[in-house]
C-alpha cells in the first residue's frame, strides 16, 4: 500500500472523451406490456452511431430526459437483432414516470452500454435454465433471443417465468412464441391467477422445484425482484446446482453507471462496474445481507 502502487494504477487523465454526455436517441415504437410496464424501441439520431453501436446481452444503459433526470435500464433486445434497441420501463419513479408520458418520436438521452454481460462462451454447449420474475425478464429476454438465434450451439433450454398476476406478465408476445417453440420447455406461472388463467399458479421458486431441471452440464440464469432471487437460490442448491452454475443479474440504485458515484456496491463489488451479471459464487457472502 505505497504511493508507487497508486501511481501505477493511475491511468492517463488526458483523454478528451466525456462519458457523461448522452447520445440522442429517437423513440420508434412503444408497446404497453402491463399497466405499469412499457417497452420502448429506439434508434440513434446519428446514423453513423446506429451502425457502429454494439453491446452484449446483460449490459445496461442510462436513459435520460433532459430536465428530469437519468435512470438505469438494461437493454432488453438481443444484440443479434440490430435494427433497433429496446428497453423495458417499469413506472416507479420520477424518470420512469416521465418516460411513460413520452410518445413516438420523442428524443431522449442514452449513454452506455455499461457493465459486464452474460458469459455466452461459458454457456456454449450447455443446457440452460432461465428463471425470471416480473420485469426481470427484460435482461433475460435479450439473452434468450441471443441464444435462440444460435439455437444449435446450446443444449436443452428451460424457461421458467412468473409474475404477480396475469396482467403483470411482460413480453406476452415473446412468451407465446417460446411456448410454441418445440425446442424449448417454457413454464409460465402467476402468483394468483384470474378466472381465465389456465397456466400454473404459485411462486417461481415453487414451480422451479416442481419442474426440477437437471443440474448436469447446466447453467441457471436468474433474474427478478430480490425476494425472488433470494428464494430461488436455495431451491437451485437443493436441485444440485453449485454456486458456479448459477448466474444472476442484479439491480441497485445507480447514478453514474461507471463505478464512480459509489452507491451500488455489494461488498467491494460495484454492480455497475463489476456486474450487473454475477455468478452466485461471487456474491454469496453478501447477498443474504445487503441485497
Amino acid at each position, binding site marked *: 500500500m505505497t504511493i508507487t502502487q497508486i501511481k501505477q494504477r493511475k491511468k492517463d*487523465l*488526458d483523454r478528451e472523451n466525456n462519458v457523461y454526455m448522452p447520445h440522442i436517441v429517437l423513440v420508434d415504437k412503444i408497446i404497453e406490456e402491463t399497466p405499469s410496464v412499457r417497452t420502448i424501441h429506439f434508434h440513434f439520431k446519428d446514423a453513423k452511431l446506429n451502425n457502429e453501436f454494439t453491446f452484449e446481452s446483460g449490459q445496461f444503459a442510462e436513459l435520460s430526459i433532459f430536465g428530469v433526470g437519468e435512470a438505469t435500464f438494461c437493454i432488453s433486445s438481443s444484440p443479434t437483432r440490430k435494427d433497433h434497441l429496446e428497453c423495458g420501463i417499469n413506472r416507479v419513479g420520477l424518470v420512469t414516470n416521465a418516460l411513460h408520458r413520452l410518445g413516438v418520436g420523442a428524443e431522449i438521452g442514452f449513454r452506455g452500454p455499461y457493465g459486464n454481460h452474460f458469459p455466452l462462451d461459458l454457456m456454449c454447449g450447455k443446457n440452460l435454465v432461465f428463471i425470471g420474475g416480473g420485469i426481470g425478464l427484460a435482461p433475460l429476454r435479450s439473452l434468450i433471443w441471443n441464444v435462440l438465434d444460435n439455437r444449435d450451439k446450446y443444449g436443452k433450454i428451460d424457461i421458467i417465468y412468473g409474475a404477480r398476476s396475469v396482467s403483470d406478465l411482460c413480453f406476452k408476445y415473446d412468451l407465446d412464441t417460446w411456448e410454441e417453440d418445440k425446442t424449448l420447455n417454457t413454464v409460465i406461472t402467476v402468483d394468483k391467477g384470474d378466472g381465465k388463467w389456465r397456466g400454473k399458479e404459485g411462486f417461481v421458486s415453487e414451480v422451479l422445484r416442481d419442474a426440477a431441471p437437471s443440474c448436469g452440464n447446466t447453467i441457471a440464469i436468474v433474474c427478478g425482484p430480490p425476494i425472488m432471487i433470494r428464494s430461488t437460490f436455495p431451491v437451485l442448491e437443493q436441485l444440485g446446482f453449485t454456486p458456479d452454475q448459477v448466474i444472476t443479474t442484479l439491480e441497485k440504485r445507480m447514478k453514474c453507471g461507471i463505478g464512480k458515484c459509489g452507491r451500488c456496491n455489494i461488498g467491494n463489488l460495484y454492480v455497475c462496474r463489476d456486474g450487473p451479471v454475477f455468478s452466485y459464487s461471487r456474491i454469496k457472502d453478501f447477498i443474504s445481507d445487503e441485497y
Partner: protein
Amino acid sequence: MITKKINKKDIRKLLGTWNQECSVIVPTREQGIVEMAGWDNKDISFLDWYRNTVVPPKACFLPQSEVMISFQKKENGLKIEVPQDEHKQIIFGIRPCDARAVAIIDQVFADTYDDYYYSSKRRNTLLIGLSCSNPYDSCFCTSTDVNPTESEDVDLMFMDIGDEYVIEEITSGGKALLNTSSMIKKATKADINKAKEVRAASVDKLKKKVDTKDVDRKLQSCFNDIDYWEQVSAKCISCGICTFLCPTCFCFDINDEMIKKHGARYRGWDSCSFRSYTKMPMENPREEKWRRVRQRVCHKFEFYPMNLGINACTGCGRCIRLCPVNWDITQVIAGLPGEISVHSGK
C-alpha cells in the same frame, strides 16, 4: 529530497508571480470556515493561523455542486452544452493528509472510465504541500501511513523550519514553478538537518493513534456481527458531515433541474449516511442505520483496499472534530472484535 529553500518573507512575492499565470488557491477564512479559495494577491496571514481547512481540497476537483450539462429550450429543440473548464490553478498549502486523499480519489475517477469533469480540473492543477506541525487532537495521520511533513502526492512540498521553508521538488511540473524565481535558494546541509529535527518533532506531536493493521481482515470477519454495528451506530444521527467533509469521500448524485426554459444536469456530493442514498422504489438495501455506518467503515478500510490497494482514510480527523455527536472512527476501528464472531445473516 530537500533541495531548495525560500525565505518566509518572499512567499507573497512567489505567490504573486504564480498568480500572474494561473489562479492561486490558498486557505481562506470566511465566517470562521476555512476552505481553499482564490488568493487576493496580498494576504498571506494564513501561514500563521492555518491548521487545516474545514472543507477539504477535494472540493476543488469535485465541487459540492457543478453543472455537467446545461440545456436551453429553443424553438427548434433543446440546445445542449457542456461547460468547458481548462483554467490552470495552483493549490498552495495543501496538507499531506489531504494530498494523499487527492491521490486516493484520483484512482477512482481514472478507473475504467475517465471522469471528464474531475480530470479536466485535476490535470490543470499543481498541488503545493505545506508541512503540518500543529495537528489537532483529533488527527491521526501517522496511523494511516501519512507523514505530516512529507508527501509524494504533491508537486512541491514546503516545510517550515523557522524563518524559511525548505522545498522538496517532487514532479517536473513543480520543478518548473521554481525555475523562474530568483527568491529560491539552494538548501544547505544545516537546513536539511533542521528539517530533520522539525520532522521528528512534528510526528511526535500526533498523540492520537489507532492500529490499522489487519483492519480489513477484522472487518471481513465481523461483517455480520450485527450487535457490534448496532452498538457503534446507536448514537449516529445520519447526517452528512463526516462524508461531505471527508477528503477521500467521493460519492456523488446526479440530478436534473429545469426552471422555465433553462435547465441543467448537476452533480453534487452525496452521502452513504443518508437513507435515500440507496433507496430503490421497492426496497432499500441499507435502510437501517447500522448498515449505513458499516458501509462507511467497511468502504474505507475493507472494500477500498480490496479494490485499489490502499485504505481510504488519511487520518485528517475532520469527521471526529466536526461530528455533532462525537462519533469517533478510531474508537470503532480499535473496538472491532478481534476474532470471528459471526452472527447468522438476517
